[in-house]
């Protein structure tokens, strides 16, 4: 894809975030999609492409009254939406469709109308992980952390700082679930979930949704909102089993997706004004900073502890408060994308003054997948 050839012209989250027991999962998709269509000034008849995850494109297209000529049902976990943006940009650039709607909705907390989460006992994970007692992401995602900590001498206090700093960002965001300040001691005294991680190092569980609308940069000039351009994109997958990661100190999927996006955008790390790294758990920003090349191997803990990513720091990271403090319905990638778009539009609650380039990096499953989108806001 040529940088700047496709733009975001509609972006919105569900009207409410948090606990929404009066909406089923598909209605959360629809609530966000209707908000995004209103944001772009479009009707269902104006949309000719649909991308979504967990729910299928046919469910979403039918529910919203859309007749698509292009669909993408890539469902690889929370970064599916980064990958949808990538695929949609390529589809629009090559003329397969003109206007793509990407939707996410998840009744992660209330669990109304969502499919059950099960691991088939005949799958490789069902045979070679599930019998040993994992129960969902909090028991699996932190499995590589002790190896990472031992390899680089990263401390519990440094990883606790990830949560502390993100709470500082959340304090600036009226829509964030948790906004009260926390200290390293608070983090290290919170309830143990799966050693070495405690409650405040694990993401929230909430309900919500988000949607994006993409079209060509040329058409984007005629929309009511300031277009946010796609500069670069990347994606990859590694393994459905965290125990089978090639390297416990680094994600192969991150190392493919991130640099691919940087090469496509033709930018360097010094060009980046704003960064989102999907933080399902407190170690994710550390792996992301290193695998995307923002800091040398093993330096991310110190980098965050020294407040480089905090308000006032040189690399504003997870400025909505992240999955640790803003919201996390289960597939958080959509909310990271929404915050990058807000920052590029200049309307974020914790706006980074003059930000021109935002990198948004997502993870899917337990280091199973990755997608990276680089946004810009300067008219090509």
């Amino acid at each position, binding site marked *: 894809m040529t940088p700047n050839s496709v733009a975001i012209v509609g972006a919105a989250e569900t009207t409410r975030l948090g606990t929404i027991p009066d909406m089923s999962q598909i209605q959360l998709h629809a609530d966000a999609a209707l908000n995004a269509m209103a944001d772009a000034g479009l009707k269902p008849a104006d949309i000719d492409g649909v991308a979504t995850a967990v729910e299928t494109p046919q469910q979403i297209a039918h529910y919203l009254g859309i007749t698509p000529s292009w669909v993408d049902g890539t469902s690889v976990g929370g970064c599916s939406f980064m990958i949808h943006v990538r695929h949609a940009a390529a589809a629009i650039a090559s003329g397969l469709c003109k206007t793509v709607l990407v939707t996410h909705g998840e009744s992660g907390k209330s669990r109304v109308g969502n499919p059950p989460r099960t691991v088939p*006992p005949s799958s490789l994970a069902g045979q070679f992980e599930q019998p040993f*007692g994992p129960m969902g992401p909090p*028991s699996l995602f932190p499995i590589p952390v002790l190896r990472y900590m031992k390899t680089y001498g990263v401390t519990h206090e440094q990883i606790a700082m990830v949560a502390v700093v993100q709470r500082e960002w959340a304090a600036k965001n009226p829509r964030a679930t948790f906004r009260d300040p926390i200290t390293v001691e608070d983090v290290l005294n919170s309830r143990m979930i799966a050693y070495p991680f405690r409650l405040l190092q694990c993401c929230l569980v909430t309900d919500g949704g988000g949607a994006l609308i993409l079209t060509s940069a040329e058409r984007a000039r005629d929309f009511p909102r300031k277009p946010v351009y796609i500069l670069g994109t990347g994606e990859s997958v590694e393994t459905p089993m965290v125990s089978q990661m090639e390297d*416990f100190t680094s994600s192969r999927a991150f190392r493919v997706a991130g640099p691919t996006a940087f090469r496509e955008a033709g930018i360097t790390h010094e060009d980046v004004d704003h960064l989102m790294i999907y933080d399902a758990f407190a170690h994710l920003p550390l792996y992301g900073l290193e695998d995307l090349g923002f800091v040398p191997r093993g330096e991310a803990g110190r980098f965050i502890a020294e407040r480089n990513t905090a308000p006032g720091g040189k690399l504003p990271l997870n400025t909505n408060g992240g999955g640790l403090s803003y919201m996390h319905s289960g597939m958080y990638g959509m909310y990271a994308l929404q915050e990058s778009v807000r920052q590029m539009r200049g309307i974020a609650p914790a706006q980074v003054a003059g930000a021109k380039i935002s990198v948004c990096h997502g993870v899917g499953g337990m280091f199973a997948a990755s997608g990276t989108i680089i946004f810009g806001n300067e008219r090509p």
Partner: protein
Amino acid sequence: MPEPARARPQPTPETQHFWDGTRAGELRLQRCDACAKVYFPPRPFCPACASRSVSVFAASGRGSLYSYVIHHRKVPGFTPPYAIAVVQLDEGPRMMSNITGCAQTPEALALDMPLEVAFEKLDDEITLPLFRPAKG
């Protein structure tokens, strides 16, 4: 009512040799006849070079503690806190397991400590490969 049991693996044609092995007291891995890669989990071809010529062999059952979490929430068949561990096998692959015969604490579970396989019978069909601190 009996206590709910831990998740039970359901073998497939491609993994049956592994579960036959644990039942017979062997930790069976696969080695590529073409490139000598030792790999896990089981499949009837080499993930490094795609050769379909691969051999099953009995591994030493020895390894070391690569990484883990100590899970503090209730899961059927487990009494928290318990470690969910990844074992680095001497032959190269890593596998998830539990560590038995050892306190489930950060102090007792030192990374890189030597381990050996300890088979635990689940039922007549399934025996799980757990690991315990190596003797001597």
